[in-house]
């Protein structure tokens, strides 16, 4: 038998590269619970967009007030009720170079060509009966005649009486209609609603005459002084909305904290002790939960007065109920597992078992429940502020901003629209994010 030896040249013996060591292993790195959930959350585009929106919201609520030029209570009464987009009449000649913005109460406001508000111009003569105001602009005369609308309104009121039963109005019946339709007026009939709509929205409500010539050319510029306009006291709406975000987020964060601290421990204790303690504690929860939380919050606000602190206190006293119930259910199923038994056998205290063993195991459910409670809390705050029980002036919250705008909604709709959009976007972001969180961390609950 001839033994055939294979010779391997000694220079072929080289140590293995460090990274090639594990190349034969078939295994994924083990992920912790949080990493695993995060991986699933990242795949959910809606949730990621919502998370981004929430982060931007938090950052702007915290940072913007530090460097913004106005504070939330700074009033400039002469520059009140300016919309975000101004319709201005440019004036450009040897004595004047500016734009004129006519406010809804027919005053003239000086605006630069870029859209910065300068001042409200003082009229030299104001004739209330013929509805004409005269201004002196460096020697040239500016006249605002706002009788057009009142005349048209008079005509419309006549039409309303005359054609109420017919419902159809020939366009020649009123001057403002025939003027609006021009040559086609003879053959046109409109309904009363349409006639009113034309009166309110379409026709020119005032005429502006400068130096004897009627200004017809107008242009739209962005309001550079108040980028989202100003409210009825001339406060910057943008910074007030940002402050509203601060209020709402504070309330939301606080509700989350309360949920976490009181709700989780109450539920843990009830579920862990079991027996009569559990029954009594859960009856209390049932009783509190059988009447809407808002009602308690209102009662508590009556006692301690309205304001930020009272909203937080009221939420703190009542907002943990649902969380307590969820956590109790989880504890009931977890408390008989081996790891709890092992911990108890080793002599761990009840507190240690809660903090080190039970709560980490319920983290998914707790996180999801908290994320769902935050928009509820924000809603409640907006709701209370809206009915006048929440944040009080001069502080701003989205609810109070909406309520303030309500009085002049038909004239200045942007004042309602801006805070309303802010609330809706925030709630939507939180809702979608908590849905995503639920799908990622608590797949059992998935609906």
């Amino acid at each position: 038998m001839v033994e055939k030896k294979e010779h391997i040249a000694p220079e072929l013996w080289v140590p293995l590269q460090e990274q090639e060591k594990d190349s034969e292993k078939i295994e994924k790195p083990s992920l912790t619970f949080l990493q695993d959930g995060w991986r699933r959350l990242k795949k959910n585009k809606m949730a990621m967009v919502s998370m981004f929106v929430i982060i931007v919201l938090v950052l702007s609520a915290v940072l913007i007030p530090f460097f913004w030029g106005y504070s939330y209570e700074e009033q400039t009464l002469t520059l009140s009720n300016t919309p975000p987009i101004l319709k201005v009449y440019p004036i450009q000649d040897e004595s004047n170079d500016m734009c004129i913005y006519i406010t809804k109460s027919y005053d003239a406001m000086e605006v630069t060509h870029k859209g910065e508000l300068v001042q409200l111009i003082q009229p030299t003569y104001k004739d209330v009966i013929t509805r004409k105001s005269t201004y002196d602009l460096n020697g040239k005369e500016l006249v605002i005649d706002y009788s057009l609308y009142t005349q048209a309104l008079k005509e419309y009121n006549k039409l309303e009486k005359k054609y109420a039963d017919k419902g159809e109005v020939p366009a020649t019946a009123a001057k403002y209609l025939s003027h609006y339709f021009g040559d086609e007026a003879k053959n046109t009939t409109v309904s009363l609603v349409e006639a009113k709509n034309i009166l309110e929205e379409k026709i020119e409500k005032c005429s502006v005459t400068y130096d004897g010539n009627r200004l017809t050319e107008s242009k739209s510029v962005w309001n550079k002084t108040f980028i989202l306009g100003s409210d009825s006291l001339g406060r910057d709406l943008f910074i007030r909305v940002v402050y509203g975000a601060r209020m709402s987020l504070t309330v939301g964060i606080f509700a989350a904290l309360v949920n976490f601290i009181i709700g989780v421990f109450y539920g843990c204790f009830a579920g862990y002790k079991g027996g009569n303690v559990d029954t009594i504690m859960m009856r209390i929860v049932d009783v509190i939960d059988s009447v809407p939380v808002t009602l308690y919050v209102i009662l508590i606000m009556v006692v301690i007065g309205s304001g930020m602190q009272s909203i937080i206190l009221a939420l703190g006293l009542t907002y943990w109920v649902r969380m307590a119930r969820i956590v109790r259910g989880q504890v009931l199923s977890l408390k008989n597992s081996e790891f709890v038994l092992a911990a108890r056998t080793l002599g761990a205290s009840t507190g240690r078992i809660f903090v080190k063993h039970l709560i980490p195991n319920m983290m998914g459910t707790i996180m999801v429940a908290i994320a769902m409670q935050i928009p509820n809390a924000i809603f409640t705050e907006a709701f209370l502020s809206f009915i006048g029980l929440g944040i009080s002036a001069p502080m701003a919250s989205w609810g109070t901003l909406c309520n303030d705008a309500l009085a002049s909604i038909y004239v200045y709709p942007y004042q309602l629209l801006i805070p309303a959009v802010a609330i809706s976007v925030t709630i939507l972001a939180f809702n979608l994010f908590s849905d995503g969180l639920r799908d990622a961390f608590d797949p059992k609950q998935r609906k």
Partner: protein
Amino acid sequence: MIRYILKRVVAALITIWFIMTLTFVLMNSIPGSPISTDKVYDVALQEALNEKFGLNKPPLERYIKYIVDYAHGDFGMSYLKVGLTTNEIIAAGFPYSLRIGIYASGLIVIFGVMAGIIAALRQNKFVDRFLMVLSTLGATIPSFVFATLYLFLFSKILGLVPAFGVKPWTGYIGPVLVTSVFSMAFVTRLMRTSMIEELNQDYIRTARAKGISEFKVVTKHAMRNAILPVVTYVGPMVAMVVTGSFVIEKVFGIPGIGSLFTSSVLTRDYTMIMGITVFFAVFLVFCTLVVDILYVFVDPRIKYE
């Protein structure tokens, strides 16, 4: 069965007692007397008022009188609306709120359930996606924004409904719609989820295999089981409708009990606040109790638990 109902009734009574006590304690812990307002009263008048409202008696005696009076359905005099009892004020306002509440609940259940079924049957198709987007929006936009937009569109621009109050009857449309939006969105989602779950069950496959028409499978088999979670939601739904009324009645100018409550809170009319709170609580607890009892008939399984 009777044991179950008795248990529920006792729990309801305890809840009502708890809320009455809580309201009493809260309203009596406000510093100062409810009568000492900014207006300057003379001492004799103040004493007469204290005597009239029983404020000079010790708290325990007042508490017992309060419980006894309320048990007899006597909610006392209003502090601020002179000469009117809380009962009269509630009786005047409640019908408006009740009417809106009933119409809204009907709308929520009928449309919510229908939309949920349609979404479940067309799962992940266009109709489903559309309904889900709508219901997400419905749960996102606050009711006061909805109410104002509605008034802006239908009252200001189109002139179809009154901007204030409920005369003519078209004034009811807005409040009912706005009240129901949030819960309708919720019911739609609830119904969709449970309907999808039921449609995947074996007994549905059996029913289909027997050759029953799809319509019957959906209405007679799947829907009857899928509607159970919606029935449980009725309690919270009534609560939503009640709290919603605070805002909606304010925006629409309806003299219902929600706006009465808000105004009595703002004017600090303590007897009114107590009366209306307890009234709300009794109403809510009663509705939940009725649902609990009805549930036994809807879901026979509960009898054997």
